[in-house]
């Protein structure tokens, strides 16, 4: 579609007005979908190249059978059950839905609570914005789940939210029971190397280490005090219980192995420090995040059992990533570390399939293994591999149909399914944008025509501008009702009418 500038500007004005109204009303006219897509009882993708990311490896000319939202089988020559939704996979590739083990998508501001070095009391779950358009954009790139993390201003930062990309559902509807986790961070960010000022403790990597140790010790003291109170208060009624401390409650969950540690880290020294410190307290790290010098201590990471969620090829943006190399993933993988590639970035999260290809390019990882860097391996790191990450019987039917090899820059995601429900369909998207373009054009034409007639009226010496000429302004400004003809969603047109009514009401 070609846009002339007045169109763009008109649409921008209109849409920003709509965005304002959307903030106090449902549904969001920007949302491409409202509610849950249907879940067919049976889905069969036939004759595709299927990258299972499981023991079956990559199968050519294979079929994927889905029943009631779960993977039933991957095999060749499956006959379509009755009433199955059949997708012709000829020439296409099918993979598990991609998983991003380090994302900030849908975290609605407040990524960093920079005031204190330990902020375990805050949680990303409180700020997941299910209306963020990037969820849809990433679905369109085959992503179906993400570990949404707090920022890296704190050695022990906020708690995470692991979400499935059920676009159109509320934020709570995107949580799927993953084990809770928390963000740790080491190095330049918690020691404020690149902040305007550095007047908060710590200023060194040693200080960062001590802040974590102190917090662990404080939590253990807190528990000891609680225990002591529990013991002594049996005999005495005049004791005061220890003051509840929400932050330390969370630290205790870490020490008890009930909460997964995902630690932002770059340099080999700080990685090793955290491994050893956590080992002292019996804590196993679920994932080292970024871990760009992980290749220097790959054996140590493997022995500890931590996963490594790294960037494919980022480097040189600050001093601690000077030695970052794109071979990092391959070296750690070869030495037995479970490696994933993450995005940390809503833009990159739209093309994680191509990030996997970089493990082939740099270090020669086998393609099937490399693809696990964005499917099974992040699932293992988040301890959700019983649910997602591979196309294996009994797992959630989160899968992507690609136009060609998922490792080719020339391929696009054609369909993205979550729980056996189709949340993205490129064909439907293309059709929808034509409808939206036509609708936008008609609205803009109307605005321009109205403006022209008002101008003409003013030139005639009338004062049409100040007095509304339509008497039908509603008494109460109800937000548009869902229109049953448009699939239960208020149309752009409904919102336009609503907006005009608001404007006229204010003019009066």
């Amino acid at each position, binding site marked *: 579609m070609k846009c002339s500038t007045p169109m763009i500007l008109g649409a921008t004005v209109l849409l920003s007005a709509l965005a304002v109204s959307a903030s106090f009303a449902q549904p969001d006219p920007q949302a491409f979908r409202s509610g849950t897509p249907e879940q067919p009882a049976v889905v069969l993708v036939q004759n595709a190249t299927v990258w299972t990311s499981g023991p079956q490896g990559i199968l050519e000319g294979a079929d994927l059978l889905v029943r009631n939202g779960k993977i039933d089988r991957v095999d060749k020559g499956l006959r379509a059950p009755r009433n199955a939704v059949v997708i012709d996979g000829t020439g296409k590739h099918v993979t598990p839905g991609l998983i991003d083990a380090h994302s900030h998508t849908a975290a609605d501001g407040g990524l960093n609570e920079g005031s204190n070095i330990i902020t375990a009391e805050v949680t990303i779950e409180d700020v997941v914005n299910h209306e963020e358009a990037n969820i*849809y954009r990433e679905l369109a790139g085959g992503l179906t789940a993400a570990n949404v993390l707090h920022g890296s201003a704190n050695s022990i930062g906020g708690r995470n939210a692991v979400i499935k990309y059920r676009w159109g559902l509320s934020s709570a509807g995107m949580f799927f029971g993953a084990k809770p986790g928390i963000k740790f961070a080491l190095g330049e960010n918690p020691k404020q190397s690149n902040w305007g000022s550095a007047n908060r403790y710590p200023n060194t990597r040693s200080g960062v280490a001590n802040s974590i140790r102190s917090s662990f010790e404080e939590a253990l003291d807190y528990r000891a005090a609680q225990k002591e109170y529990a013991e002594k208060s049996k005999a005495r009624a005049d004791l005061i219980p220890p003051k509840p401390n929400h932050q330390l409650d969370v630290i205790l969950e870490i020490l008890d192995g009930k909460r997964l540690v995902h630690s932002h880290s770059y340099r080999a020294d700080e990685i090793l420090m955290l491994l050893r410190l956590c080992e002292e307290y019996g804590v196993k790290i679920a994932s080292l995040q970024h871990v760009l010098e992980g290749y220097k201590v790959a*054996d140590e990471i493997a022995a500890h059992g931590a996963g490594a969620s790294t960037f494919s090829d980022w480097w*040189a943006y*600050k001093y601690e990533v*000077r*030695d970052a190399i794109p071979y990092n993933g391959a070296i750690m993988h070869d030495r037995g570390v479970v490696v994933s590639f993450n995005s940390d970035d809503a*833009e990159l999260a739209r093309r994680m399939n191509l990030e996997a290809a970089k493990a082939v390019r740099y270090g020669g990882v086998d393609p099937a293994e490399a693809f696990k860097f964005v499917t099974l391996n992040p699932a293992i790191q988040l301890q959700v591999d019983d649910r997602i990450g591979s196309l294996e019987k009994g797992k959630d039917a989160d899968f992507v149909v690609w136009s060609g*090899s998922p490792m080719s820059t*020339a391929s696009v995601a054609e369909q993205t399914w979550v729980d056996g429900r189709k949340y993205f369909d490129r064909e439907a998207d293309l059709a929808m944008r034509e409808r939206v373009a036509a609708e936008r054009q008609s609205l803009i034409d109307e605005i321009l025509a109205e403006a022209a007639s008002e101008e003409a009226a003013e030139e005639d010496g009338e004062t049409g501008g100040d007095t509304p000429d339509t008497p039908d302004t509603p008494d109460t400004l109800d937000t548009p009702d869902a229109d049953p003809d448009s699939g239960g969603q208020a149309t752009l047109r409904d919102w336009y009418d609503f907006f005009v009514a608001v404007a006229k009401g204010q003019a009066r």
Partner: protein
Amino acid sequence: MSFIGSISKTGYRAAAAALVASVVIASAVGAQGLGSGTTVFRGADLHTVDNGVISGGIMVVRDGKIAAIGDSSTAVPAGATVVDVAGQRIYPGFIHSYSNLGMSDIDSVRGSVDIGEIGDNNADIQAEVAVSADSIRLLPAMGGGVLYAHIVPEGGIFSGTSAVIRLEGWNWEDMTVTAPTALHLSFPNDGDAGDDEEAPESKAMKALNEAFDQAADYGAAREAGLRLDADRKLQRVLDVINGDLRLIVHADNVSQMEAAIKWTDEKEINDWILLGTTDAAYLAEELAAKKIPVLMETVLGIPGRDFESYDSNFSAPGKLAAAGVQFALTGQADTAFARNVPFIAGMAVAHGLDPEAAIRSISLAPAEILGVADQLGSLSVGKEASFFIANGDPLEIVTAIDQVWMRGLKVDFERDQQRQLWKKYRDRPTSP
């Protein structure tokens, strides 16, 4: 055909190993500078860009330039060193057409960054004099097939003059292909005044027009023989007015681009280049009609407006091509990712750009736009022998680039710190 099946696991490893394998070929190995003697590359598919693909062809390189190119019947000069590259592909070195390669090593370390100057008018700034020949960023970019860069100074309304450089050489002078390439103008971002003729001129717009008028006055005064202190800033702007220096206008959104078109029309600047975002696609027809070439970034950006389709940036290059705009694709100036420029073009292919046009958009097209097509941008006689040898389509990430040659010399990646670290730790004895 799928990637899997066609190349075995060992094949991938072998290809990766070849990246660092030091194939000793006569005396043409290792040293920087201009190759001497004659080297013949035999058997590869030569992707010339300006003359199609020559299957199993022969390319003769002499004194750092391409001396002959043709099919398998092309004469191999006596005494030439022959490099057998049968089954491989050769492409001309790609160009990072909006870059600061060599001007920055570590973004957060101010002492290593020489990209942006302070002040409004920095027209007298030259990018090339701040290029470090041993910048850690150069070899990784070359490993991705990106052998040239158009380096651009930032800061101010007029940010200075850019240069086209080779990514290898003894020093910045040796590396420079052309300088000054163009004067850079960051067009004021005033939002949109629409048809409101009364809209007040912004401070930035006023400063731009003042600088421009001053330069014209300066020229007139000098021409009239008035004794004036030399002013290199004004002289650079005057060079643009006089048509002696091209202008590259940075504009990030549609209204800025439209304002820039209007402004250049008013100032009668006819030979200028737009450097901007995928918003250029909205103006494709106008840009084509006015023959304004475009250096386009943000193809991998998130759509800036909620109503734009999820792939609007990805598909922008295809729209420019369809409208007949002359354009080059580039990443953001952040050069740590310069090696990924071919994959930007690859993404454009997935979203409607012809594959050949995609290759062209990072080779011959930027060379033409930047006025260096007589020296680089394609495999043709007389051009610099700067090219790379790959085992497949360079727009694909899984393709391995086996060799890189600059001006007739094989690039030695043993000097690349990234590969040094890779080998050091790959070969670390396993801990007991």
